[in-house]
């Protein structure tokens, strides 16, 4: 009967029935919403209404939940902490309060909920007569987000693994190339001596030259193997630096003297005070100076000078090696200190790409730093090592 009456009611009827009809329609609409749990709570937190969404999300039918206290949706921990009352209090205070957290379904399983509680009042000053609670189940979204995070982490791990693999390949390519060259020299020089002897062409001069070549190739091979061993020791935490009072200028002069024997007169220039003491491992410092001078010689023309300077800066000591060579390209400034990293313009020079890496590691172990810059007054580069002065108390 009612349906019929409703149906015949004219569209432009009085406002009272139309308002009523609006409320009915709204209630039906809310009841039919399935993606959101929308229900009313009394001021004491008891459940007054229920919709399809609430049934779907929380698992209770309307007749088994209406009249119950809404705290049963909360986890025991949250109930213990008084969270349900706290949220109602906040909603009463601010008019509206939003929360995200774990809630319980009827079957005891948990879901991740996004909750908005809105206080309903007769007027602005009165206490709420009810609360509207709208809950969304974000479990899937949360799982998706977590999956996304896991995927991203996996992706990062994969990229890191690929980079490590690429670095290893680069190492193998460079190491094998660099190791094969002195082996080729050794082999060829040896066979050339034997062949010359077989043909009766082996005089003293040739024998000496040949043996010297073999000696140089063995030295080179020994150096390369030493570098590789240093790197593997560095990778495993060592080698231990024994810091003792060390006189840097003597180390520098010693290294310069070793190189000067094979270089044109005056190519290697040393500028240093009489003595500068610091706490350092002398053998390791020797290695750093050797690597820097070797680099400076290698990447510059055969007669271009290389300057080694020691500067006393009070609390710190500075060692500077300046060349007039190919310089350091800005884009590869950081890479040159990495293991097997080489400047873009340095690819075809002999070497394995470990000298600067080893030097950087040694300097870091002394609490110092190493930088590369271009010369400001012309072609070439400047490598600056800064070491703290302190001599360990013993």
């Amino acid at each position: 009967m009612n349906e019929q009456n409703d149906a015949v009611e004219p569209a432009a009827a009085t406002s009272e029935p139309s308002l009523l009809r609006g409320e009915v329609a709204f209630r039906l609409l809310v009841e039919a919403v399935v993606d959101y749990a929308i229900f009313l709570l009394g001021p004491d937190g008891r459940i007054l209404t229920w919709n399809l969404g609430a049934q779907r999300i929380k698992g209770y039918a309307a007749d088994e939940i209406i009249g119950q206290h809404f705290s049963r949706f909360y986890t025991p921990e949250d109930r213990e902490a008084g969270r349900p009352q706290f949220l109602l209090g906040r909603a009463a205070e601010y008019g509206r309060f939003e929360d995200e957290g774990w809630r319980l379904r009827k079957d005891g399983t948990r879901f991740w909920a996004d909750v908005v509680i809105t206080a309903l009042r007769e007027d602005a000053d009165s206490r709420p007569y009810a609360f509207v609670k709208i809950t969304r189940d974000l479990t899937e979204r949360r799982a998706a987000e977590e999956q996304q995070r896991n995927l991203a982490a996996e992706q990062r791990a994969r990229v890191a693994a690929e980079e490590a693999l690429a670095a290893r390949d680069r190492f193998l390519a460079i190491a094998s190339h660099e190791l094969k060259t002195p082996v080729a020299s050794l082999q060829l020089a040896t066979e050339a001596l034997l062949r010359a002897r077989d043909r009766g062409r082996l005089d003293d001069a040739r024998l000496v030259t040949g043996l010297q070549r073999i000696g140089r190739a063995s030295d080179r091979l020994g150096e390369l193997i030493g570098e590789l061993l240093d790197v593997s020791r560095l990778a495993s935490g060592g080698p231990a630096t024994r810091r003792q009072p060390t006189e840097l200028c003597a180390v520098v002069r010693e290294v310069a003297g070793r190189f000067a024997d094979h270089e044109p007169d005056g190519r290697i220039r040393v500028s240093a005070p009489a003595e500068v003491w610091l706490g350092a491992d002398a053998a390791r410092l020797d290695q750093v100076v050797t690597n820097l001078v070797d680099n400076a010689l290698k990447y510059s023309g055969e007669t271009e000078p290389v300057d080694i300077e020691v500067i006393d800066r009070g609390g710190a000591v500075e060692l500077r090696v300046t060349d007039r060579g190919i310089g350091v390209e800005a884009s590869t400034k950081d890479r040159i200190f990495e293991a097997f990293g080489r400047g873009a313009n340095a690819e075809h020079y002999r070497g394995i790409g470990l000298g600067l890496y080893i030097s950087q590691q040694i300097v870091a172990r002394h609490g110092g730093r190493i930088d590369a810059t271009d010369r400001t007054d012309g072609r070439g580069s400047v490598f600056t090592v800064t070491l703290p002065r302190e001599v360990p108390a013993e």
Partner: protein
Amino acid sequence: MSGRAPRVLVVEDDEILRDTLVEVMGDEGHEVRAASNGEAALELLAAWEPDLIVLDLMMPLMDAYEFRRRQRAGGLAGDARVLILSAARDLEAAADRIGADAWLAKPFRLLEVIEAVDRLVNERAA
């Protein structure tokens, strides 16, 4: 080239290999010159035409690829055979790219390089 000794240019940055190869090729009766990089090799080619270029791939200042590009562009020693010596991987592809007639991977035996040089200069003579 009939009547004269085969001419071999050795382009190699490793001093020991270079000097030893020059010595050995000389013993074989070849006329040998040497350069430590592509740039120096190009300078030599301007006034001297070898029958064979023994070429290292990776050298400072100018590597083998750039050397070959400029050699071709300049029409220098266009008929010379090319033998690559290198410790790099995938030499076959490199030889292909560079237009080389043969290649030997470092380290190589002395006899291998003597034989390869003989074969290439004889091919050139035939």
